[in-house]
């Protein structure tokens, strides 16, 4: 039997042994909370901080709402006593009381969180094997565990907006949400993310940027002239998709947080004209909830309830994206300005 709390304790032991103190803490503010990133080695910091470069940096004297300790065995020279599951499946997770532990059998990545101590551990055996998708959205599972405890919801979706607020673009791969969002980079619309965003429910819900990466395949890159050079030059490749850190190329494109005004489900459509149509709430929930629940697992019943409540409170739209994704931008701006009515 592998006891999850013992694994958490082993993670704490290994990180303490690996920590040299030579690498300064990094940190960022998201949804008004401070996250401190503590690295055992400079190599880990170099790979796992760029995705947060667009966020407000934490001040040196800030009290951490969450501290994430990250390291790899290879560059630190400290080996984690790995759990010997004897299993071939992809992963194991434990959630009990304040403790969350996930062990990825394929990558041998350990993620553990103690909510009471606001302390998390993220370990890879060797940064050389760190997948590009992990670099694009580091600590995703830890951040979901932590934020769901705060009543926030990490969603699989993109967000763009204006001073009037933001829309959440949701849908499965190929729906056009990422391309529509990335096409806003460098335009009159601000960008908050193209794959994951953090939603804060409430009387006036808000959407917060969390990861600064953008992901696109060759077909989408061809539709993104402003970002295409960055995508072609990137070293981060995840299957058919290339990943860039948008902030590196368009630092002014981001908004870190906006009021959330509507949920939009894009669909690539024939023709050159984009258009908006009202969409039923159930269909919107089908576009948002399954992909979020299965890509951001953990506390799923509470997550589903939060997403359902959000959809009840916001207007929902189908965005038919025709021709250039740029053609959708005036429609989104008009929707946010209140000049499009159901």
């Amino acid at each position: 039997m592998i006891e999850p709390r013992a694994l958490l304790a082993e993670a704490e032991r290994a990180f303490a042994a690996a920590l040299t103190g030579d690498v300064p803490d990094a940190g960022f503010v998201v949804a008004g909370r401070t996250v401190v990133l503590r690295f055992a080695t400079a190599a880990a910091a170099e790979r796992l901080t760029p995705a947060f470069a667009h966020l407000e940096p934490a001040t040196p004297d800030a009290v951490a709402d969450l501290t994430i300790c990250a390291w790899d065995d290879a560059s630190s020279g400290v080996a984690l006593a790995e759990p010997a599951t004897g299993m071939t499946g992809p992963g194991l997770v434990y959630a009990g009381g304040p403790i969350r532990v996930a062990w990825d059998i394929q990558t041998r990545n350990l993620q553990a969180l103690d909510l009471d101590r606001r302390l998390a551990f993220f370990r890879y055996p060797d940064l050389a094997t760190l997948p590009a998708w992990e670099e694009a959205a580091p600590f995703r599972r830890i951040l979901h565990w932590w934020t769901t405890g705060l009543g926030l919801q990490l969603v699989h979706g993109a967000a763009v907006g204006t001073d009037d607020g933001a829309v959440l673009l949701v849908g499965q791969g190929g729906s056009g949400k990422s391309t529509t969002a990335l096409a806003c980079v460098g335009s009159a619309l601000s960008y908050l993310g193209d794959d994951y965003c953090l939603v804060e429910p409430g009387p006036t819900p808000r959407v917060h940027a969390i990861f600064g990466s953008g992901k696109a395949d060759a077909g989408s890159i061809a539709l993104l002239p402003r970002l295409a050079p960055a995508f072609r030059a990137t070293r981060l490749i995840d299957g058919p998709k290339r990943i860039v850190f948008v902030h590196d190329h368009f630092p002014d494109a981001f908004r870190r947080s906006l009021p959330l005004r509507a949920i939009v489900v894009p669909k690539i459509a024939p023709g050159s004209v984009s258009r908006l149509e009202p969409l039923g709430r159930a269909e919107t929930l089908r576009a948002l909830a399954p992909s979020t629940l299965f890509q951001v697992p953990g506390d799923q019943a509470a997550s589903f309830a939060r997403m359902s409540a959000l959809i009840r409170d916001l207007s929902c739209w189908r965005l038919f994206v025709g021709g250039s994704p740029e053609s959708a931008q005036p429609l989104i701006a008009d929707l946010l300005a209140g000049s499009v009515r159901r």
Partner: protein
Amino acid sequence: MRHRLNDTDVVSELLDGEVIVIHLHSGTYYSMQANAADVWTALIAGWTVDEIAEKIAAAGLGERDALAADVARFVASLETEGLLAAAAEDAAAGPVEFLSPSPWIAPELQVYTDMQDWMLVDPIHEVAEEGWPIRPTDEK
């Protein structure tokens, strides 16, 4: 027999007359509209097949036995998908408002499996307090 939602594995929501159900462990999700949404709502409120058929027959939407057969087939499909659990023997049925207009159309379960690939990429075996069992590598 009375049922309830298999809330260990399943989440469900009724929005604008359509029910969305997600099986969290299989990666499959479902949609139920019109009569299917009504019957689902009644089932997870603890109504039996016969009680549902009687209610619909009383509204003049069909002959009771034929309605019961339609509902029973629907229940069988829900059980096959693992969406329902047996309610306690002494469970009482809660109030339900039937929303669908006539005519009666046999309830159907729409099944979506496009998220199952994600379950293969990032499936999670949730474990209890005592920890993760160590299993032989050839065991699925």
